[in-house]
């Protein structure tokens, strides 16, 4: 049995075949019943007609020898069994006397016949010891039941005729079965082939070959499944590419500081420095690059944590103005050094439900970027409330970003100027992390910029809901 049900094609084939066979059997049964009923009705009608026409030979009085002879002669010529009975005993004439005799007709039948109504018989008759279809026609002289004409056909004859019919049916049914099962098998194959193709394709994908594309034209469920499969495999491919790119980026980002560290440490070991001052400078460089690596690794770690589902924010009500003020406090020396003017206008009433450390990280990442690309300009921070949200705007008058880069600026390791080194200290992950964190707070981060004029970062965050 398992052998038969271990594939969808076999199951479908079994279903189709069973349906065909059940249909054929059922229709055979039905038509057999109808045929028999129609045939029996037909036989009864013809017996009635025959009987009535024979009864018209009777013209009252006792039954004459003449009419008996006529009926006998007719019986010898007819397929139907016909006989005439005038014995009052057989006609249950002695009924109230309870005579111990199995009469040809019973009490109720005699009553019917006395009213001139023919009696019909269908089934087993003890008198003939067989199944019959019969009709009894009364021969009435006024209200005297002088006799009856009994006409019957053994039911075996009827079943003989239905047997012929059954053979014909059987032959036709066999041909029909073969044809419909063949067609059914073809149909099942056609339906299940795309599924087999999909199975093969899925195996390819699981082996790391993402270039499969199913060519299925049908628009039905299987076609839709194939389309979904194609979409899925292309998504996997894209994701795979992203992963490769990311790894390439990470190794690239690491290679620069490593080569610095390697080069300067080799220089120191081989005594290439000319003075103590140079040596110090080299060591400074090594330290700087090591820090950068540390930051990079830290950021990557943060990013991978943020992307995993388990990452939990430790939310609490935060007065945002205070937090921003504290965060920018440490930038003041740097800003003064770079001659950047800092302005801020913070609404002190804004309170959000957020993770203090993470929100501070967002502000820091954006401030880092703004300070990094702004010299002799101005940075303006605004905090305001807009209906049920708050808006943080950090605007600078830095170098700005051209439109073509703006859409990709939030991607990891994306650089506006590919040739630029990371000498300015950024890891290329700051904005990506900031956006991730804002999203985790159900907020939105957007960047507006114009080349050589400045950049504005807008962060929308939901306010703390007061219950």
């Amino acid at each position: 049995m398992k052998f038969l049900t271990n594939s969808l094609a076999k199951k479908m084939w079994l279903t189709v075949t069973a349906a065909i066979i059940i249909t054929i059997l059922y229709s055979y049964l039905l038509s057999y019943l109808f045929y028999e009923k129609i045939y029996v009705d037909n036989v009864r009608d013809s017996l009635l007609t025959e009987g009535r026409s024979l009864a018209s030979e009777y013209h009252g009085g006792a039954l004459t020898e003449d009419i008996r002879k006529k009926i006998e002669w007719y019986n010898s010529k007819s397929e139907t069994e016909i006989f005439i009975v005038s014995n009052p005993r057989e006609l249950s004439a002695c009924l109230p006397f309870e005579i111990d005799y199995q009469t040809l007709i019973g009490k109720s039948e005699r009553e019917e016949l006395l009213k001139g109504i023919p009696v019909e018989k269908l089934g087993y008759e003890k008198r003939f010891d067989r199944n019959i279809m019969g009709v009894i026609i009364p021969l009435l002289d006024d209200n005297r039941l002088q006799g009856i004409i009994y006409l019957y056909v053994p039911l075996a004859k009827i079943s003989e005729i239905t047997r012929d019919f059954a053979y014909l049916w059987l032959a036709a049914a066999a041909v029909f079965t073969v044809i419909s099962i063949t067609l059914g098998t073809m149909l099942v194959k056609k339906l299940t082939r795309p599924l087999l193709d999909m199975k093969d394709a899925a195996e390819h994908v699981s082996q790391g070959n993402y270039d499969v594309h199913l060519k299925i034209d049908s628009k039905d469920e299987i076609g839709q499944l194939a389309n979904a499969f194609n979409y899925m495999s292309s998504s996997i491919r894209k994701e795979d590419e992203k992963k490769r790119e990311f790894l390439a980026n990470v190794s690239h980002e690491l290679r620069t500081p490593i080569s610095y560290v390697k080069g300067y440490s080799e220089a120191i070991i081989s005594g290439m420095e000319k003075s103590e001052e140079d040596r110090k400078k080299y060591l400074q460089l090594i330290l700087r690059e090591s820090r950068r690596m540390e930051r990079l690794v830290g950021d990557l770690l943060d990013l991978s944590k943020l992307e995993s589902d388990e990452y939990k924010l430790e939310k609490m009500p935060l007065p945002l103005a205070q937090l921003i003020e504290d965060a920018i406090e440490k930038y003041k020396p740097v800003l003064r050094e770079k001659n950047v003017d800092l302005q801020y206008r913070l609404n002190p009433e804004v309170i959000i439900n957020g993770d203090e450390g993470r929100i501070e990280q967002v502000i820091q990442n954006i401030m880092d970027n703004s300070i990094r690309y702004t010299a002799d300009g101005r940075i303006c921070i605004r905090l305001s409330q807009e209906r049920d949200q708050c808006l943080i705007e950090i605007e600078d008058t830095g170098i700005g970003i051209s439109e073509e880069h703006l859409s990709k600026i939030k991607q990891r390791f994306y650089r506006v100027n590919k040739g630029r080194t990371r000498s300015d200290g950024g890891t290329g992950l700051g904005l990506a992390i900031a956006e991730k964190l804002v999203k985790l707070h159900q907020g939105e981060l957007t960047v507006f910029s114009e080349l050589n004029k400045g950049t504005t970062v807008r962060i929308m965050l939901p306010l703390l809901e007061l219950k």
Partner: protein
Amino acid sequence: MSKKMYGLFFLWIIAAFLTSCSEKKQPAIPEDISFAATVNIKDMTISFVDLKKKELVGEWSMEKPYTGALILPDNDSILLYGKHLETADLYSLKEGKMIDSWETGEGIVNGILIDTNEIVLADQHLNKIRFFDLNGEEEKQVESEIDPLTLLESREKNKLFVLSFNHKKMGIIDLKSKVKSGEFTIHPSAAGAWLNEKNGEIWVGGHGEGVEIEQNIHVYDEETGKLKKKIPAASMPINFLGQENQVYVLSHGSNMLYKINESGEETASVSIAANPFEMTFAAHKLLVAGYDSNDLHILDPESLKTLKSIKVGEGPFKIVIRESVK
């Protein structure tokens, strides 16, 4: 007001319910008419035919399947019995209601009133002949052959002849001592008999056994039980009526009525009714009931001409006569 109306209505309903439970009242039959009553098996009715006016004067619709009846000497009580009934019920004709019920048990198929004002019932359940007085007190039971049916009283010899329907026996009971005094073997499926006292013969009819149909009257010696001769009377002669050296014989198989003299010669015959079982004399007329034709024929006994035929209930099986004395 409306409460009162409801109360009245309720009372009326209860009254209707209670009266429907009590014995059904039948149309009264006046004392001053002579009638022939037919007990009709098929529709369970009793039809009363006024013999003077020769018309139907009343019909009783019964709740039990009565198959026979007897008029008691008071000329008002009619005793109704049936094979499948536990009781024989006595009705008053003038009141049209049941006045008594005799606990006979099932099996009563025939009953006659004999000369001694006793009622003799043939019981096929107990296979006994049972004697009752007019008050319904059972006086005596006499063993009979299985299935006693026809009862024939010989007033001259104070004997009762009992025909057993299925057992080829004729039993003789002495009416004085009410003991079985003899029996002899007869033909099968015997029914109907006449005592030809002049010749010391007993004529017995019948239905015939099995597929055979009785075509003859069997004439037995009254004393010895010896079969003396057969008189043709096709077919199924089952009812006899003796009258002044003549006997009328009714054959239900061929719907024939024969008039036969004492020596067995047919003097007249007529085809009558459909499947007639029952025949009797009343007011110098011959009455024949057609079981299938549901009618009562009134014939002139001499010419055998039908004077009138009257429709009665379905399946008349027994005729009883009351001749008014008033």
